[in-house]
């Protein structure tokens, strides 16, 4: 346990590829990092995925949860200490930084690496919140099972939307992939796979405007054509929302510089934030690439930046 007189060298907040990689590097640098991995989110966004095919070194792919478990184990092997809880308060604008977890435990650190990642974006339509867990979902791998032989829809146009839609065809009798535009942002290989899937049907230029329930469960969505403005309805019992993510900046908002989209700003070519001894990495700073491997790379950079900063301060 740390104190103001005896702070840890480095605290890492977040446990996706960025956080765990920062843990591996900081631990190997003998900094005895303390890593806050979250009460129910340890492992980050990849815990809710299936096969990861593009992480280098895994020739035949690896399951997302297994990849994260192995990263955690690797960080642990070199002495990273874990707190399986969320940080609910951070005071970063001082020489010794202060953190408090959800159970009320207090911590002090000389340097902090922020790696909180991003959270699911919501559509913000009527019925969405009310029907969450009753047909509306953000996690195909968690909930797809419950939609066997049903007609469902996925909203979104990026890799995660296409991945979810393709995954859901294992269960559903039909999957509509609804996108606001007339082409996908997703990578070519995933689009090709989706196009070849007989259970998957693309619905272009369409947005979902309302989720409608019957007997407490989703049974219809209302739609609007983004070109003609024409309204429509679709009978679906599942609606999976995959329209992107927003950086999880709640903890540091107001004390650290963010860009206009809420991402933590770092100095070009480094992971340094505007606060001395505070570094940021992963999806929290990256609105361009947002890949497991780029997050891991920036987590490595953050640990090296923190190590260098500690040696000079």
């Amino acid at each position, binding site marked *: 346990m740390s104190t103001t007189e005896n702070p840890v060298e480095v605290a890492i907040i977040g446990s996706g590829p960025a956080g765990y990689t920062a843990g591996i590097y900081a631990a190997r640098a003998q900094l005895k990092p303390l890593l806050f991995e979250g*009460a*129910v989110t*340890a492992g980050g966004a990849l815990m*809710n995925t299936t096969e990861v095919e593009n992480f280098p070194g895994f020739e035949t792919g690896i399951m997302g949860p297994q990849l994260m478990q192995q990263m955690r184990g690797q960080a642990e092997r070199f002495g990273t200490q874990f707190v399986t809880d969320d940080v609910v308060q951070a005071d970063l604008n001082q020489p010794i930084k202060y953190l408090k977890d*959800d159970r009320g435990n207090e911590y002090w650190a000389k340097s902090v690496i922020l790696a909180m990642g991003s959270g699911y974006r919501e559509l913000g339509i009527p019925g969405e919140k009310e029907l*969450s*867990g009753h047909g509306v979902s953000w996690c195909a*791998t*968690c*909930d797809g099972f419950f939609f066997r032989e049903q007609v469902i829809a996925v909203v979104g146009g990026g890799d995660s939307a296409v991945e979810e839609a393709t995954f859901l065809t294992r269960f559903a009798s039909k999957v509509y992939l609804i996108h606001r535009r007339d082409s996908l942002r997703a990578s070519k290989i995933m689009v090709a796979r989706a196009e070849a899937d007989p259970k998957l049907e693309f619905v272009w230029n369409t947005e979902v405007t309302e989720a409608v329930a019957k007997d407490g469960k989703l049974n219809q969505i209302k739609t609007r054509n983004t070109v003609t403005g024409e309204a429509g309805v679709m009978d679906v019992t599942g609606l999976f929302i995959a329209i992107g993510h927003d950086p999880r900046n709640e903890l540091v908002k107001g004390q650290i510089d963010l860009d206009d989209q809420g991402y933590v700003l770092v100095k070009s070519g480094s992971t340094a934030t505007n606060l001395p001894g505070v570094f940021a990495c992963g999806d929290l700073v990256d609105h361009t690439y947002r890949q497991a491997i780029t997050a891991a790379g920036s987590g490595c950079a953050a640990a090296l930046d923190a190590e260098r900063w500690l040696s000079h301060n």
Partner: protein
Amino acid sequence: MANMKVLTDASFATELKSATTPVLVDFWAEWCGPCKQVAPILDEIAGEYASKIQIMKLNIDEHPAAAQAAMITSIPTMNVYVNGEVVKQIIGAKPKAALVAELAEFLN
């Protein structure tokens, strides 16, 4: 593991009816990441509030009939039963403090 009874399709209704305290049923599956993350938290709550609430587990893969009858479409779902009736539903993994707050009426 604290005292967490494992429910089956066959035992589900009778266990809930015969319970003398409120029962929280954790609907879960092996392949569900968030279920695994909330499991140790439920274990702690079961230990700390043993006299107030019983926590039971239902594996939805092994016992789909009970899960279907309870209209589960997302896991983890945690239903609280009193006299066999659902009186509270919590969907999704949550940190301990949040779960304890949501369950306050049964724990105090």
